[in-house]
């Protein structure tokens, strides 16, 4: 059992207990004592009356017992017994214990278990009776009053008392006391209730006010309905609400001011961001254009020249074949074959360069084909296994987006080749029409790296920039020994320029 069980009690309950507990204790003890006192009084009074009655009857019945005139005695005792309802029975017994007179009350109902006994003593008057005992017989009065002495006991008076009558009277008195005490208890209860209420009501109001304040309503002004600490509390709550209201207004003003500043800064940042994206896009465009023009130069000029040089060398070979054999002719033929071969190699290199600078496969095969081409190229030229998985119709992608995607895949695969030392790599292209995004994912089972500690290389930075320029997202997940997973999402359509937010209107003041 919890010793401090009252801790969960409310003020009203505590107040009621504090007020009522002593009163209840007092009431209980008073009622108990009163009942005890009344009972004791009955017992004492009965004992006293019994003794006095026995003594008085013993005195009065002396003559009747001695003279044997018991009928007189019976009449006397009967009168007494019938007039006093608290007497149950009176017995007069002689010295031998034989009952001489017994009178039982007609009205008394119950009897005490014991009786009060008084001896009937024979009283002797010591006066000079002129006996032959030596003293002179003087008939004149002696100076002192002759003493009356008692000698032998001639019988006993036994009085049995009946407590019911006296008990009834005492019970009536007790009931009056009980009802008075109960009234006092009830009055105390009402007083306790009133007192408790006088505490609870202002406290509840104060709590309500505090709740309102907590809810943000500072416009509470609890009335000061009482004095003392409670009144002080009420007035303090009112003052606190006022002070809080004022400080809230101050804060709101400050916040509004800061918000305005922040919005301005944000708008500025947004503008700068947009400019940056435009710049990157522009740079990428320029690079692609430049690459394209270089590729065209190489393709149109260099490769045509190389084809012409091969054709010339083949012509030299043919001439040599027609010429008479000799060591010079053989030397010429060998040289022309060497030039032809060199020209072919250069042509092939030129073609490779053109392909890298300007992935015309993209124009011819689309994104899917170009990526397939590049994957196949890496798969065949390295010890690592590459595979591709793609979903969706990539034809409708914009050229810019397709080039960026292609370059991103190219860069990612280049990174795998250069750093991962992976045994296999998986590329997936997914056109999510529902969300309007192109998802690119390159996963390898290579060495991996700690994304938190390792500094990003140029490759990843370039990828980020491309993604950023297209308003896409890039996520690189890797840990040492666990391979690397690069996931990129590019929106199919460039989202509208984010609107510049104007600062909200300041909070309305009341």
């Amino acid at each position, binding site marked *: 059992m919890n010793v401090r069980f009252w801790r969960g009690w409310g003020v009203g309950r505590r107040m009621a207990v504090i007020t009522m507990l002593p009163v209840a204790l007092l009431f209980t003890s008073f009622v108990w004592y009163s009942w005890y006192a009344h009972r004791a009084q009955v017992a004492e009074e009965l004992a006293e009356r019994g003794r006095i009655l026995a003594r008085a009857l013993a005195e009065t019945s002396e003559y009747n017992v*001695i003279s044997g005139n018991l009928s007189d005695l019976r009449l006397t005792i009967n009168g007494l017994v019938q007039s006093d309802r608290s007497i149950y029975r009176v017995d007069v017994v002689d010295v031998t214990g034989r009952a001489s007179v017994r009178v039982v009350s007609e009205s008394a109902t119950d009897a005490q278990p014991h009786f009060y006994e008084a001896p009937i003593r024979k009283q*002797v008057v010591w006066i000079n009776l002129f*006996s*032959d005992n030596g003293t002179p017989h003087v008939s004149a009065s002696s100076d002192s009053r002759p003493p009356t002495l008692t000698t032998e006991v001639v019988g006993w008076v036994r009085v049995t008392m009946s407590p019911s009558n006296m008990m009834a009277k005492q019970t009536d008195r007790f009931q009056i006391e009980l009802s008075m005490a109960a009234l006092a208890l009830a009055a105390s209860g009402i007083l306790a209730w009133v007192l408790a209420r006088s505490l609870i009501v202002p406290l509840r109001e104060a709590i309500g006010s505090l709740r309102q304040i907590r809810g943000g309503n500072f416009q509470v002004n609890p009335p000061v309905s009482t004095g003392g600490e409670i009144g002080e509390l009420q007035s303090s709550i009112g003052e606190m609400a006022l002070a809080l209201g004022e400080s809230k207004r101050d804060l709101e003003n400050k916040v509004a001011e800061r918000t305005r500043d922040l919005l301005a800064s944000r708008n500025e940042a947004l503008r700068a961001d947009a400019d940056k994206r435009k710049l990157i896009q522009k740079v990428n465009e320029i690079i692609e254009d430049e690459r394209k023009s270089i590729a065209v130069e190489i393709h149109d000029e260099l490769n045509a020249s190389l084809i012409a040089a091969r054709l010339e060398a083949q012509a030299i070979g043919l001439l040599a074949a027609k010429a008479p054999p000799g060591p010079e002719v053989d030397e010429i033929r060998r040289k022309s074959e060497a030039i032809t071969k060199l020209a072919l190699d250069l042509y092939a290199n030129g073609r490779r360069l053109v392909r890298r600078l300007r992935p015309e496969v993209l124009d011819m095969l689309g994104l899917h084909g170009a990526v397939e081409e590049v994957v196949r190229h890496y798969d065949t030229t390295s010890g690592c296994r590459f595979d591709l998985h793609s979903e969706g119709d990539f034809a409708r992608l914009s050229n810019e987006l397709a080039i960026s995607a292609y370059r991103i895949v190219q860069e990612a695969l280049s990174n795998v080749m250069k750093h991962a030392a992976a045994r296999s790599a998986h590329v997936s292209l997914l056109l999510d029409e529902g969300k309007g995004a192109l998802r690119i994912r390159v996963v390898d089972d290579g060495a991996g790296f700690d994304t938190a500690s390792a500094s990003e290389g140029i490759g990843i930075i370039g990828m980020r920039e491309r993604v950023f320029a297209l308003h896409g997202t890039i996520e690189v997940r890797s840990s040492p020994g666990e391979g690397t997973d690069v996931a990129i999402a590019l929106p199919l359509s460039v989202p509208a320029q984010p609107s510049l937010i104007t600062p909200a209107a300041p909070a309305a003041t009341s």
Partner: protein
Amino acid sequence: MNRLDRALRRMPSDTPALASLLAFTLLIVLAAGAANAANQVAGQAASQPPVHAPNQAPVQPSGQVPAAATTLIQDAPPPAAPATTTTAAARADRGETQGFRFEIITGDDSAVTHRIAEDLYKRLVPTFAAFRTELAQKRRMLYIAIGPTALRDALSRRCDCVVISAYTSSQVWRTVTSRPSQGKQRRPAATAIYAEPAPRDQMRLAALLYGRPVRVGVLLGPDTAFLRPVLHDAAEVQMYSPGEDLNHTLNSMTRAEMLLALPDSDIYNAENVRNILLSTYRRKQGVLGFSSDMVKVGALATTYSEIEDINAQVAEIASSFVATGELAEPQFPRYFRTIINEGVASSLDLRVTDAARNFARRAPAP
């Protein structure tokens, strides 16, 4: 005893009466101190010259006097009493006795006894003053016995003497005097003044109380049966023998309106008195008691005699005896007064008259 004698002799005194009184007082003091010894003191007129009044040695051996008893012996004093002188002279002619002397015998040492003895002494001294010049041995002794014990003491003395009994009831007197004397011892001549009131006076008082002649009942026991002839005419006599139920006897005395109580230890003893008083009261019978103490404890009324009354009567008898040589018959008190318990009287519906209240026979002034 010698010491007292010497003290008395040395004592200067002008008047013999004062000297006697002093001697008597000293004597009481001494008697109180010596509880076991019997004191006998010769009351001397100390102022008298030794030649005229030789000291008298105590006439009794101390062993014969009862314990704590005092005997006053008077054999002197003075002032000339011419009347008795001639009587003494006449008496001297008859034999060897020439005059009288007296001795007061007491049986106890109580204050009442002392008062009686003192008063009596004063009353008797003048009577015997005439014989003071005679030799003590030649004077006849008159004993006055105060109370029953003193009476027995006086009667037991072997001498040619006379005893006057006072303060002894008729019943006890009769019991003592009827006892046969031991051996051939001659019993002294004796008379008595009974202690209880005279029945005749009581009857008159009863009539005064009721204002008419009343029927008076008397209970007589074996010791008081001798009074039956005296009372037979005046009262309803009911005999009672010891052992009977007293209440029954009282109940049978139905005709009597009053009960005349007479001293009788068989009937009226300390244990019975209250019962008798209550029984008679319940039957509306008044009790004429025999002492004022009895009236105080519940009897209706009585005539009674003060010590002075009895002493006056003793003095009269002594004086008469000294003068005539004739000893009066035993008699009831001559002088009396009346005491009435007014409470009892009103309870008995008696209207007490002044005649009853003042019913008395006063003794002449000494």
